[in-house]
């Protein structure tokens, strides 16, 4: 039988408990919990002295120190005297050192046990603050655009060209793939229903109108939120963390004018173009599936598409895309510029930029659809 790590011996005469440590007390061996020793306090309530006997200890490290530290703390709370019997070299010193380290003050943590009502209230106040910040930012943007229009703003053409490229050409591959697939999906879903009436040629109408009126813009918007919106937030967030934005302010340069305005402009120019391209790709996807797998006549398909898609559909789609461009650029830039100066700040800014942009895009789509309904467009 292996030896117990801890053995206890209580002497009634002087109310002293001898705690004996046996064998190896190291991090990689199994160490008994402190409660094994402290439970003895309950067994002998009139205990006055505790003797830590380490004569049988063969090896030790921090695990023993932690054990003793906790035990001695408990003894101090109960006014029990602690004595060592033959402690190994250095152990007493380390323990004394650990025990004196209580003078380091830790700032009390703020109490976060809010009631449900408090949380709801705070949520609303937070929303109010968020709205205030947004309006403030929109005001700054309008002012900066005003200065741009009267030619008083500082505008770097080559950097703007670079932005146009990043918001446009570089996104083409992704937009192609997704729009093509959306066209394919619309064609398949439509075909299943229309087959019942033998009206499969109307797939052309469904794909054409759906893509041009909303889907092209919405898919492009969601892609660009994840792509460009996130990268705006990360860029400006890092600039904020590196004090680059402060450096603009000290120079009397408005960071909104210098950083935000060109980004909004670039996206507002590129989003409609990308949307047009996405529309085309979607129609192409629907066409390919209809002709190759659903055996529709290609010429008839094209004629149907041309007849179904009216100019008004196109304008509605483009209106969507301009609104989405503004939404994506503003949420990316706002989150970036207000990024917290911490390691997680840029990550949080990026995430919240994408979430804000996508949520706002869906809400905006609903609003625009409703307005079109009322106007009868």
């Amino acid at each position, binding site marked *: 039988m292996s030896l117990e790590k801890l053995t206890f011996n209580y002497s009634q005469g002087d109310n002293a408990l001898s705690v004996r440590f046996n064998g190896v007390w190291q991090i990689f061996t199994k160490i008994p919990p402190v409660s094994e020793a402290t439970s003895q306090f309950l067994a002998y309530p009139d205990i006055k002295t505790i003797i830590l006997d380490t004569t049988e200890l063969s090896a030790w490290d921090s695990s023993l120190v932690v054990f003793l530290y906790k035990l001695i703390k408990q003894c101090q709370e109960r006014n029990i005297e602690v004595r060592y019997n033959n402690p190994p070299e250095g152990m007493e010193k380390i323990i004394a050192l650990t025990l004196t380290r209580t003078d380091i003050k830790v700032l009390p943590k703020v109490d976060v046990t809010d009631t449900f009502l408090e949380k709801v209230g705070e949520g609303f106040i937070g929303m109010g603050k968020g709205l205030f910040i947004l309006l403030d930012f929109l005001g700054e943007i309008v002012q900066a655009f005003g200065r741009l229009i009267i030619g008083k703003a*500082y505008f770097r053409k080559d*950097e703007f060209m670079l932005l146009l490229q990043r918001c446009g050409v570089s996104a083409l591959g992704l937009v192609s793939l997704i729009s093509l697939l959306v066209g394919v999906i619309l064609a398949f879903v439509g075909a299943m229903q229309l087959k019942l009436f033998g009206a499969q040629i109307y797939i052309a109408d469904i794909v054409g109108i759906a893509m041009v009126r909303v889907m092209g813009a919405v898919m492009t918007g969601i892609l660009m939120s994840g792509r460009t919106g996130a990268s705006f937030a990360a860029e400006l967030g890092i600039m904020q963390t590196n*004090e*680059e934005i*402060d*450096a603009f302010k*000290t*120079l*009397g340069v408005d960071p909104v004018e210098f950083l935000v305005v060109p980004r909004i402009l670039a996206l507002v120019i590129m989003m409609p173009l990308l949307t047009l391209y996405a529309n085309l790709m979607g129609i192409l996807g629907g066409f390919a599936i209809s002709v190759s797998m659903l055996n529709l006549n290609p010429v008839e398909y094209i004629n149907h598409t041309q007849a179904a898609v009216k100019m008004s559909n196109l304008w509605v789609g483009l209106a969507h895309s301009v609104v989405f461009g503004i939404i994506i650029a503003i949420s990316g830039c706002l989150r970036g510029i207000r990024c917290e100066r911490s390691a997680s700040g840029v990550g949080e800014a990026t995430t919240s930029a994408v979430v804000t942009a996508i949520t706002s895009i869906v809400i905006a789509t609903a609003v625009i659809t409703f307005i079109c309904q009322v106007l009868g467009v």
Partner: protein
Amino acid sequence: MDMPVKPFIEVRNLDLNYDDYMVMRNLNFTVNKGETFIIMGGSGCGKSTLLKVLIGLKEPKNGQVLYNGEDFWAADYRRQQEMMRGFGVLYQSGALWSSLTVGENVALPLQLYSSLGVSQIRDLVELKLSLVGLEGCADLYPGELSGGMRKRAGLARALALDPDIIFFDEPSAGLDPISAKMLDDLIIQLREDLGSTIVVVTHELASIFAVGNNAIFLDDQSKTMTASGDPKYLLDNSRDPKVIQFLTRGRR
């Protein structure tokens, strides 16, 4: 040669806060023309916050900051912008604009506010860069520079508009001793050759004694300044144990 003592910045009853969190209370000090003024104190005590208020990036809770007798925070926005143009600031991280080259960084303030032509600006940029020992680096991007070079480039940019006063936030933080010494020497050179007024935030003892001829000590427990004067004088004469501990690294 004794310089005539003229107050340049006067700080009166300044309180600093972040929302409900008080950082510093009741700061009162004067920075004279041509002086190198040190703001010293432990990490997190509010040195950078004070600097932000001095350079006009953050409004104080209470109190005044006077530049040549003019109250900065009482001035209107346009006037504040004008006054800020007279400040050169070297930020803790250098804060070079990462999408521009070093040369473009230094040139931007000149393009914005001077009426110089393209070639004149280019010459001036080269001059400022050689002043900080970075001649020939104009076409590099900030990402291609070492930490010490980045700070020196930041200094060249801060000097672009020949500022009346230059602020440094922890110039030697994160630098090896040799680069740190080089930056200290630059600061001394600026004061002696250009007669610039300089405000340095730092907790580096070597810098404090090398460059400073006036200082305040911010204490994070009492949340106010607990000493002011020439750091060498403070070292010999201060009775505040915390100031002595700070200036001797607790080795006395």
